[in-house]
Structure formats: structure tokens, C-alpha cells
């Protein structure tokens, strides 16, 4: 590590210069210890060539080499070298370093969604491992760049995180650690109350447009025949009016107008899933609190797609590291080490679900099916087991298909469409539930339908309950009123009580949550000091 890398040949497409061109980023300080040794740099270039050859497409990627402790620290911070100060990062680090010390887990790599992509390699890894990891990293970078669910993420997050950290530190200096920390804890408590689909849909018009736009609309809409603001179709002749604008039509338009006026009076006009945004817009926050909450919200939205595509992303990366290794990069002498590492990654331990494994198997399955033409109406309708087994139209569309899948799908869609019964049987999947009688978790079904249903349920809204604000001025007392859209699973009550307390703290007035506990509708209320729960009428 003492000889600096050769700087006369700059690998094309990567920005692995000796002096980091993004000097302001100071990833781990301008510390030459983290630069890659020449043989690793050579590996990176070699594997990059293979990745490009196979069609992977990624932002320039910068690799840095860290020792196990440094990588644990970076991992504790979600992959970023700098985060705002908070004990939660200390907690993650504690867990990671203990895991490492006792040989339970080792982080091989870390890569973040950014342009350029930053990836960290673990110093003490064998060359074979590094190869595998580098291949894995390039596939991740390709996924971040091309999967549409990442399309709206901030690709300059590395800088942004550092910026967040600076802002928070400033507030800590001014207002004291404890005060800022408590506020952050409250924000983190409601961090999952965002609209996971929001970045992709414009849910409601911008605040400024809200009223002027509507007014403008009603101007153009009204045809001024004395019926206020009701929309009418053009009719040139008065006697035609009754036919072109029959009474039912008029009534319908009137009703619509009434509804819109109602909506405009409702606050918020539509139920809001982005609770954080609502708080930002309407809670009486100090300027620094507003800033901190907006930081938490930004970060939540940044990380959201990663949670939404975990299985696919890991599967994709595993698929490519195996392909690159087995078809290009692996030397005979390295086979055993490679197999050892790889099998560890995709091992299924009892009682757990391994996203690497599931993702990998599904992608392989898709590739095989599309190569053989095992899709489409004919395929779906074919009952003949023999025919299905021997089905091979030799279409060779597999590769193309998986690239398309990686572009468009998220985990829910991925599983919904591509999870098959065969897959479940081969991988011995089952559904488990809590048995109250025995106080244990037991296997409840191996049926394909049940497995799929359960998996999708677990993934929908990324395992978070759907909670919306429906009223920001409940009982005209400025109270917040939220509804939990109950879809069969109750909330954890004790946690909910505490979360409501935090919400009341942020809102500065009482908050109410409508939910269902033990099949009974309940209204939970917290005023910041006391909690009350009252049954509601069915």
C-alpha cells in the first residue's frame, strides 16, 4: 500500500485519480491509506471491462479500501462516511463491531447510490473475494442508475449527507445536544410516515397553485348561464341546449362542483400519507426544527427505494458476480475460495429469508424461462406437466428480459409476477404464524398461494402500516386526526402510544389515531401528556 497507484494511466470512465477530483467530498479525508493498491486497481479495471461487456451501465465508480473497523463505521452510517451525530449510529456500530469480533458477520463491501458511485472494499479480503465483490458492486451501481424507482433520488447524496451533518451540528452547538437529540428522536419516530409512491406521482398540486389554479379553472369552466360556475358544453343554438346539456348532465356537474368546494374546505383536501410534509407545512416548528425535520424527511425518501428493491438489487448483484466470476474472471486456483464465499452469501438459514438467494434464483428463473419461451398465454394455459418440462422454444430472450425487469420492477411487482410454485417447492418456502396457544411461531402452510400472499403482504408499503392524515383541524381545535388503514393486522399498541406522544410533541397539540385493535374500532388519543383510548362505533 506504500506505492501510489500509477496516475499516468487514468482508467477511462472512472474518476480514480490520485487526487480525488471531488476534493470537497473528503470521503474519508484525503487519506492515501484508502487508495487502492495497484493490483486491486488492475482488478477493478479488468472487471469493469467485463461488466461493460455484459451490458451493465453505471455511473463512474470510485473504489476505496478500508479496514474492518472503518468499514463497520461507514456501514453503521448507512454507507456514508459522514452523518449527523446521533446515538443510533453508535448503536449500529456497536452491533457490527461485535458481530465482526465474534466472527458472525463481515461486511465485504458497501456501495452507495450516488453519482459518482462510491464503493468500499475490505482491506483484509483475499483477491478472490475482492473480485467477487467488485463484480457485485458494479451490478449494484447499474441497478441504482437504471431502476426507475431510483429515478428521483438525489445522486449527490454524498455531499448532501455531509451538508445535513453540518447543519445539525450547528444546531447542536446553538441549542444543545440533548434538545436537538430529543427532537431528532421524535422525527425518527415518524420517519416511516411518508408516501412511498409520491416521488413518482404528483399527488396534489403545489401549494401556491392550489387556489389560484382552481379559481382559474372555475373561470374557464363556467359558461355563465346563471348557474354559478357549472360547466356546460358548448351549444350554439339555445334550442339545442337541452339536448347537449341535459338536466342530468347539469346535475352531475353541480354535484362535482359541490364536492370540489367541500374538498377545498377540508384540510387536507385529500388524506395525506406524507405526514412529514404535512408537519413541515403546518406544525408550529421553530426554524431549526423545520430544518431538522426536512433533513430527516429527505433522507427517508432517499433510502426508501433501497428498501423497496432489496431483493431485486441483491439478486441482481449476485447474478452478475456469479456470471462475471464463472465466465470470465475466475482462475482455476480460486474456485474453492469463490465457492466458499458465494455459498455463504446465498445460504439459507432455517427460519430466515435470504434476499440474495431469492433474488438470484428468481432472476435465473426468469432468464431460463425467457430463453425457452416459457411465458405468455400458451404457457400459462398449458396443463401438461411433460410439455411444460420440455418446453423450449429457443427464443434466447432471457438476458434482454432480465435487463428490462431490473429497469421497471420493484420487489412487490417482482415477486407478484415471477414467484412460481416450483420455486417455492424447490426452496422449501413456508408461511409461519404465531400460535397463541403454544406461544411459538409455527409453520402454517406450504401452499403456493399462501406463500405468495404473505410475501406480498410483508412487502406492501415495505412492511409499514398505512397511516394517513385526514384532518388537520379536528373538532376545530387544531388537533391532528389520522387513520390507520387496517388491512388485517393490528398495530403494536405500546409502540403506537409512544409514537403518538412523539407526534403530539411535533404537532404541539393533541393527536388522534383511528385504528382497529382486536377487531374493534378504537380511537387513540394523545395530548402530549396523557394517552386515552376510546372505542368507536362500528
Amino acid at each position, binding site marked *: 500500500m506504500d506505492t501510489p497507484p500509477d496516475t499516468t494511466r487514468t482508467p477511462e470512465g472512472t474518476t480514480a485519480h490520485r487526487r480525488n477530483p471531488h476534493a470537497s467530498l473528503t470521503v474519508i479525508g484525503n487519506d492515501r491509506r484508502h487508495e487502492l493498491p495497484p493490483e486491486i486497481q488492475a482488478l477493478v479495471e479488468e472487471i469493469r471491462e467485463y461488466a461493460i461487456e455484459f451490458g451493465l451501465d453505471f455511473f463512474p465508480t470510485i473504489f476505496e479500501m478500508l479496514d474492518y473497523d472503518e468499514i463497520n463505521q461507514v456501514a453503521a452510517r448507512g454507507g456514508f462516511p459522514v452523518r449527523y451525530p446521533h446515538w443510533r449510529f453508535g448503536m449500529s456500530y456497536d452491533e457490527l463491531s461485535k458481530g465482526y469480533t465474534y466472527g458472525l458477520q463481515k461486511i465485504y463491501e458497501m456501495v452507495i447510490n450516488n453519482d459518482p458511485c462510491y464503493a468500499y472494499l475490505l482491506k483484509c479480503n483475499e483477491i478472490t473475494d475482492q473480485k467477487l465483490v467488485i463484480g457485485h458492486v458494479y451490478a449494484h451501481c447499474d441497478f441504482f442508475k437504471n431502476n426507475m424507482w431510483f429515478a428521483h433520488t438525489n445522486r449527490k447524496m454524498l455531499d448532501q449527507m455531509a451538508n445535513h451533518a453540518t447543519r445539525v451540528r450547528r444546531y447542536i452547538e446553538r441549542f444543545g445536544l440533548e434538545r436537538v437529540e430529543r427532537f431528532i428522536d421524535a422525527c425518527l419516530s415518524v420517519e416511516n410516515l411518508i408516501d412511498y409512491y409520491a416521488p413518482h406521482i404528483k399527488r396534489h398540486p403545489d401549494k401556491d397553485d392550489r387556489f389560484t389554479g382552481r379559481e382559474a379553472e372555475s373561470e374557464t369552466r363556467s359558461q355563465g348561464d346563471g348557474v354559478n360556475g357549472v360547466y356546460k358544453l358548448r351549444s350554439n343554438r339555445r334550442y339545442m341546449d337541452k339536448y347537449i346539456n341535459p338536466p342530468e348532465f347539469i346535475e352531475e356537474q353541480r354535484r362535482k362542483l359541490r364536492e370540489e368546494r367541500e374538498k377545498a374546505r377540508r384540510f387536507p383536501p385529500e388524506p395525506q400519507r406524507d405526514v412529514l410534509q404535512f408537519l413541515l407545512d403546518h406544525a408550529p416548528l421553530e426554524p431549526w426544527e423545520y430544518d431538522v425535520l426536512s433533513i430527516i424527511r429527505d433522507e427517508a425518501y432517499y433510502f426508501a427505494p433501497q428498501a423497496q428493491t432489496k431483493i431485486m438489487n441483491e439478486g441482481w448483484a449476485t447474478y452478475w458476480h456469479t456470471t462475471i466470476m464463472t465466465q470470465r474472471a475466475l482462475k482455476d486456483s480460486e474456485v474453492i475460495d469463490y465457492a466458499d464465499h458465494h455459498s455463504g452469501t446465498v445460504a439459507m438459514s432455517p427460519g430466515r429469508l435470504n434476499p440474495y438467494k431469492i433474488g438470484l434464483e428468481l432472476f435465473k428463473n426468469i432468464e431460463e424461462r425467457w430463453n425457452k419461451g416459457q411465458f405468455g398465454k400458451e404457457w400459462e394455459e398449458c396443463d401438461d406437466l411433460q410439455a411444460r418440462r420440455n418446453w423450449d422454444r429457443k427464443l434466447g430472450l432471457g438476458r434482454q428480459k432480465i435487463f428490462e425487469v431490473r429497469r421497471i420492477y420493484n420487489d412487490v411487482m417482482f415477486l407478484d409476477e415471477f414467484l412460481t410454485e416450483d420455486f417455492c417447492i424447490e426452496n*422449501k418456502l413456508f408461511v409461519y404464524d*404465531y400460535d397463541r396457544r403454544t406461544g411459538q411461531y409455527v409453520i402454517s402452510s406450504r401452499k403456493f398461494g399462501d406463500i405468495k400472499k*404473505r410475501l406480498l403482504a410483508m412487502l406492501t408499503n415495505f412492511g409499514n402500516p398505512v397511516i394517513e392524515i385526514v384532518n388537520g383541524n379536528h373538532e376545530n381545535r387544531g388537533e391532528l386526526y389520522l387513520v390507520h388503514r387496517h388491512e388485517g393486522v393490528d398495530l403494536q399498541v405500546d409502540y403506537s402510544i409512544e409514537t403518538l406522544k412523539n407526534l403530539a410533541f411535533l404537532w404541539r397539540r393533541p393527536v388522534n389515531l383511528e385504528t382497529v385493535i382486536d377487531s374493534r374500532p378504537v380511537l387513540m388519543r394523545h395530548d402530549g401528556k396523557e394517552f386515552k383510548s376510546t372505542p368507536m362505533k362500528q
Partner: protein
Amino acid sequence: MILDIEQDVNRFKHIVRGKIRKDLKKFMSKGEMLGRKGRNVVSIPLPQIDIPRFKFGSQQAGGVAQGDGEEGTPIGGEPGDGTGSGEAGNAPGEHVLEVELTLEELAQILGEELGLPRIQPKGHSNVVAEKDRYTGISRVGPESLRHFKLTYREALKRQIASGTYDPARPVVIPIKEDRRYRSWKSKPRPERNAVVIYMMDVSGSMGEVQKEIVRTTSFWIDTWLRSQYNGVETRYIIHDAAAREVDRDTFYRTRESGGTLISSAYKLCQKIIDEEYDVADWNIYPYHFSDGDNWSSADTRDCLDLLEKFFFPRVNVFSYGQVESEYGSGQFLKDILEKFPSHDQLLTCKIEDKEHIYDAIKVFLGTGK
């Protein structure tokens, strides 16, 4: 940049220990990891603070996993969806050791909890023993320290070498480069080494409970001292009417029965110190635990004499802990305090029961000696 994580870690640890942010205490859970340390399976406590949020009641959520088993088969423990590296460190049924913290962390916590000052090793404060001797030579220095002879010798050497020396007319004029000055060398400080000599009364009156108390107290003392010194030696002496040196295991296990002559232990201790531990190099910490029931007041007098004449001039601190037993009279403590009511090298403490161990440690380690 990377060092900052220590700040976050310390903050987390302080919260976990309940020192700050007590409002977070209720969200704490004590998870564990199962790992391996050599052959043993160890349980690594993993405190977690779970910030409350809206989430599904785990009682109902269930999930999907992989493995063998028919419907109705229970699956072990609390399953969850794992990630990546498939090492399952679970080996149910094996003997599991608890690994709480490393000893260093333990000592650190002890230090913080009890507000223990760092120990000042003897050599440090003893100015007399450390002298600067002007035995060295330097090329620079104040004029008051110039070395006449060496300077001229250098000048002479130079002149001969360059041929300007004329034996007929010897004139030697030193130039700047020739000048030599006296300089000093510090005598090396004595190594910060410590020896702890535990002495325990194992006469009939010391029961299991009492020995347990002694064992616990001495463990903490040992841990703390180890964190303060590079090498800590420990010697163990047991005594009833006669004293002998033993190893650690025996120290804790013996059940002698017999009379009690405390002086026997002190004398043996004296012998060990004399023969093996040079006062100048060693920080010596004798600890004596007894139930205070000495054979005779004459013997007690001997002990106190030894303390005064031998121990105090040599040791950092002499500590005496009196554990309570039904048979003992506790007389020795009274006697010792009578003779030395406030000697700053003497530490005594009554350890009535397990709860008082904490106080005892505070007394014994609190002086920073």
C-alpha cells in the same frame, strides 16, 4: 472524520447504562448474539434501543421463511428475515458463556461509576529519587554549561586536521562548531509496575459467604489495577495460625480451621516483599481480609508494629477489609483504627455483606494511590 463514530458510540453506551436520556430506557431491550470464542459458544449482549414507531404487532405478523418441517411444526425462537451472510451462529444446547464486556471496558466503567482517580504511581511523585545528572554532552547550550576541555580539544583536532596548528606557536581558537556544552540525562523513572498481595484469613470463622465477598472484592480490585498498570503481579497468602503462600485457586477454595494469628500473614508478606520486590521499582498493594478475630492482643500489637515499621514506609497503600462473620469479634479493626486513626496510607473498610462490596471498593480504590 471516522473518529466521530466514537462520539455516537459513547452517547449510545451512556444511554444504555441509564446515565442520560432516561426517557429512552423503556425502549431498551437486551438482545444477544451468539458467537464463538475458541471452542465456546458465547452470548454477546446486544443492547438495543428501539425508537417507537407505527409498526405491526409482532404477535400477529408472522412471515415467510425456508426450511424443513410440516404444518404445525414450531420454528425456533423469533425468526426474522435475515440478510446476506448465512452464518447461523446458533447452536442450541451448547454451554454458553456470557461475554459481557472486555475487562478494559469493565475497568473503565468501574472507574467512571466510582469516580476513581487514576493512580499516581510511586515513582512519579517521588522527586528525590529522580535526579538529572549532567553526564551528557551537547553541541548547543547555555554558556554557563560550557565544557572547556572538550571545546578546546575539538578546536585542536580541527586545527591539526586543517594544518593551521603551529606547534611552535600554539594558539587554539575554538569556533562555533567546536563548542561543547554539558547536558543532562534523566535517570529512568521506575517502571510502573505493581504487585498486589492478597492475604486472607481462612480460620474456622471464615465461611463460604465471607470468602465469596473476598473473592468478588478482590476481582474488582484486580481488574482496576490491571487497567492502571502494565503488569500486575499478584501473590496470595492464606493464614490461620500459620501463613503460607498459595496460588489463586487455592486462595479461594481453602477451608482451614484453626486459630488466627494475623501476624503470621504479615510476616510472610514482609518476607516476600523483602526478597522479591524492590521498593524503588514496585508499587506494592497489600490487601488483608479477615473477620477481625485475632488470637491475642499481643499478636495484634505485633501486627501493628509491623505495619508501622515495615509496611507503611514501603507500600503505596495497606488495605484492610473486615468481613463480618457470626464467630468473629471484629476486634482487629478497632485496634487498627485505634493505633492509626487517620493514616493516609491505611485504608480500612467493613464489609458486612455483598451489598457493601461496592462501598468497599470505593474506599480501597478511591484514593488514587
